[in-house]
């Protein structure tokens, strides 16, 4: 103990001594006052003792250090464009010098870009934000692959040959979740089949996942949840960002983001993506490619405008072309298309988008603003699968005007506005061999051309006492030209029981017009006859819009254990459909039967999640999710097929001090009900339930300084695949052929590597 106290005295003494030795130095910081009267550093200012040659310049933080010189006490501080300052230094050791800008030059002072505070996300709604750090845990490749570590979102293949993935929330198929891009219509309409693969991962800045009903501001469509994607923005992006990726099947991707601040008020970002799957690969020898060959070119150019006086604007355009070809190996479209030579398919997509946002922040009233969102989309989809030809063309225009302000104090906020949606579809389904059964009449060609025009009004009131309680109450009324008045009320409550405990409730209705063919393309990749039955009218596909109530409860508890923090989240959601266009695969294995719900259709979802920091820089996430999704079919109430009732995962993320990152995820998927195949000959019958299985992914990332990072990973580490993902792969033109009975991975262990380069 004695030694200890000696050190205690000795060290401060040494510090004081060393300090007096350095007292001959003068330290200073050079600043200017910005428009708001706040000090900002001036880098590169010249500092010199008058009448001597001893000088220095200020660093990027405005700080300089200069030795005292005998015989002079006058310090000259100068900077181009600013009035020089001469100071008399007596016994100071630290000074601050404020330079004043030369009046003539003041006007050309470049003001830096600051992130826009345009749309704030309603805090009362339970939203999980996934940042780049989270997204980098799985480096590949687009939005469909971003949810590996998010227990609320499942991603599944629609069939065994097109490589199309769809998300599921609360056990409900993809389009029940509204996917918006920067709070504007994103993945909907014809894009709902392939669309999540058209958003490259390196374009994404963050993803906000809301379970249950969202805000009414963005429309009536979210039933199971809302996923909002924020893309890279000019005002906060690196100057240059390059990402390259390749895997052992030669899937290759290149992404280039480039940002330029072209003037004081304008800035622009280019987002470019090119990807290809050049080679045919059939690892399970069933004569079908494991995934299609093809390529995608995808480009965005976006601009932001900020006059620094409250007016903010955005403009953007996007062009996308995507081709996919697959089926049996050596399928050659020129000879084999629409023949029984070989089974094949092609999906060709062309998409153009343009959007704009205009916002005005009332001067001196930070809570009062008005915003206009506009977007226009043209989407062309041209595809065939065997003898099923599906062609569709969508032209869509969307406008949303939002006014927000407060009532008296900021305890009471509101948003209100009007919206308009125009959606025109030219869509046809052709099968020259097996006619489509439309309400009992058999037709080789069916067209579903329609034009939807939907004006709407909405209002949302937000109460927040900035303590324990907040509430959001909203409603919207839309008039749909085909389906009449749609009323969508939604409420959210949040109660902070303690500083570490919060409780949230949400109740609301969601409505959407299902794009039945686009959302179920897996059915087209089979010999099933397409049947439309129990029609509810003659509009669109013959069904009224899907409509459901959603109830949710969420409890989040932060805790500290062994000095490390963690969180436990438990939630339960119940979705009850008032109407639904249902796909029935169980009636007979020969049909894919769409019918209007006449009975119950519901989903229960329960989720439990623990996040904890096991050690410094070593994070653990464990989650378990239970689903019970059932629908009344003509043959009785059945569990929805191909949805795992149980899913659990453990994600471990470790980062070393010198920026090596290790990620490991193991998932367990419970058994899934497989639609009834008992009518098939024994060789093509499937069990009633799939087995449960594990999936493992791992990745290593190394960051070098702040410019480069490289990563190496493996998907499906334990190499689990379906033995026979395709029913009757050997007889693709028989009545038994079916690729949609997929409940797990089709390709095995896959290695990948890539890099990221960023220039600030």
């Amino acid at each position: 103990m004695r030694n200890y106290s000696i050190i205690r005295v000795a060290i401060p003494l040494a510090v004081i001594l060393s300090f007096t030795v350095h007292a001959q130095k003068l330290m200073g910081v050079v600043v200017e006052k910005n428009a708001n009267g706040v000090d900002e550093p001036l880098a590169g200012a010249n500092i010199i003792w008058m009448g001597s040659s001893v000088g220095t310049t200020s660093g990027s933080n405005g700080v300089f250090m200069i030795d005292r010189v005998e015989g002079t006490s006058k310090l000259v501080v100068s900077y181009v464009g600013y009035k020089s300052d001469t100071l008399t230094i007596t016994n100071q050791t630290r000074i601050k010098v404020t330079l004043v800008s030369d009046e003539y030059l003041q006007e050309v002072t470049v003001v830096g870009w600051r992130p826009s505070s345009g749309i704030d996300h309603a805090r009362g709604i339970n939203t999980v934000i996934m940042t780049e750090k989270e997204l980098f845990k799985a480096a590949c490749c687009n939005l469909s692959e971003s949810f590996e570590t998010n227990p609320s979102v499942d991603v599944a293949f629609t069939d065994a040959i097109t490589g199309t993935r769809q998300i599921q929330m609360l056990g409900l198929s993809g389009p029940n979740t509204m996917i918006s891009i920067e709070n504007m219509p994103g993945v909907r309409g014809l894009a709902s089949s392939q669309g999540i693969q058209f958003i490259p991962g390196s374009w994404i800045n963050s993803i906000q996942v809301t379970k249950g009903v969202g805000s009414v501001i963005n429309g009536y469509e979210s039933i199971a949840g809302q996923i909002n994607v924020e893309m890279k923005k000019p005002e906060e992006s690196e100057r240059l960002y390059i990402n390259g990726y390749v895997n052992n099947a030669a899937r290759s991707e290149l992404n280039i983001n480039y940002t330029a601040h072209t003037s004081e008020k304008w800035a622009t970002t280019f987002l470019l993506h090119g990807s290809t799957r050049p080679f045919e690969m059939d690892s399970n020898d069933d004569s079908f490619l494991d995934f299609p060959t093809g390529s995608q070119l995808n480009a965005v150019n976006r601009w932001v405008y900020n006059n620094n006086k409250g007016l903010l604007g955005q403009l953007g355009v996007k062009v996308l072309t995507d081709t996919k070809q697959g089926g049996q190996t050596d399928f050659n479209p020129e000879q084999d298309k629409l023949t029984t030579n070989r089974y094949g398919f092609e999906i060709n997509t062309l998409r153009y988008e343009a959007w704009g946002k205009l916002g005005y922040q009332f001067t001196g009233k930070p809570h009062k603003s008005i915003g206009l969102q506009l977007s226009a989309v043209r989407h062309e989809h041209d595809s065939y699968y065997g003898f099923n030809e599906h062609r569709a063309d969508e032209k869509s225009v969307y406008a949303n005007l939002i006014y927000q302000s407060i009532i008296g104090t900021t305890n009471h906020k509101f948003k209100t506005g009007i919206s308009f949606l125009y959606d025109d579809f030219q869509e046809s389904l052709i099968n020259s061999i097996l006619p489509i059964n439309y309400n009992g009449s058999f037709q080789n060609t069916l067209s579903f051309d329609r034009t939807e025009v939907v004006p709407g009004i909405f209002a949302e009131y937000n109460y927040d006492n900035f303590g324990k309680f907040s509430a959001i109450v909203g409603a919207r009324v839309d008039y749909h030209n085909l389906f009449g008045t749609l009323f969508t009320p939604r409420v959210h409550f949040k109660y902070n029981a303690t500083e570490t405990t919060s409780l949230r409730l949400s109740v609301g209705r969601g409505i959407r017009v299902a794009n039945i063919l686009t959302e179920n393309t897996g059915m087209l990749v089979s010999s099933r006859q397409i049947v439309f039955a129990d029609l509810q009218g003659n509009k669109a596909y013959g069904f009224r819009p899907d409509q459901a109530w959603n109830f949710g409860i969420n409890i989040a508890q932060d805790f500290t254990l062994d000095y490390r923090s963690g969180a436990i989240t438990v939630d339960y959601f119940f979705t009850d459909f008032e109407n639904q266009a249902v796909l029935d695969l169980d009636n007979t294995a020969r049909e894919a039967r769409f019918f209007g719900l006449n009975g119950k259709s519901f989903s229960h979802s329960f989720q439990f999640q623990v996040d904890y920091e096991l050690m410094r820089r070593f994070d653990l996430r464990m989650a378990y999710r239970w689903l019970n999704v059932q629908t009344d079919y003509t043959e009785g109430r059945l569990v929805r097929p191909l949805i795992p009732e149980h899913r659990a995962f453990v994600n471990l993320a470790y980062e070393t001090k010198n920026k090596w990152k290790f990620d490991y995820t193991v998932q367990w998927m419970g058994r899934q009900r497989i639609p009834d195949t008992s009518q098939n000959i024994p060789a093509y019958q499937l069990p009633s339930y799939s087995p449960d299985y594990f999936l493992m992914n791992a990745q290593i990332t190394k960051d070098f300084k702040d410019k480069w990072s490289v990563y190496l990973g493996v998907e499906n580490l334990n190499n689990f695949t379906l033995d026979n993902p395709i029913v009757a792969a050997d007889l693709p033109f028989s009545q038994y052929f079916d690729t949609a009975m997929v409940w797990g991975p089709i390709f095995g262990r896959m290695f990948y590597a890539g890099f990221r380069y960023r220039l600030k």
Partner: protein
Amino acid sequence: MKTNIIILFLLIGSVAVFAQSKAKVVTATIKVYGNCGMCKERIEAALDYKGIKTAKWDAKTKNLMVVYSPAKITEQKIHELVAAVGHDTDKVKAKDTIYADLPFCCLYRDHDHEGMDDN
């Protein structure tokens, strides 16, 4: 069921990891000077060090709460680690040369104003 058991094992395994790190530790509160969130990051990253279990710095109170194992590290060493990245503590002062490299928003020392202005 077999797989459920495996999951259960994973969970138990994780709990075991929680439990094993119950070494003898002490908690100390140290005054550390700084301003902002960047300072907080820097200070806490500097204390990502063997023997230190956790370190949390509060920009308002300037209090650093540090939990460490005295068998592995001394409190003096903790002061030195903080000073080495440019932040003064109530015992150890950071070197001027290191302090001068801090970002502008982190310049926490008082800078006497101007001196005498000759203009």
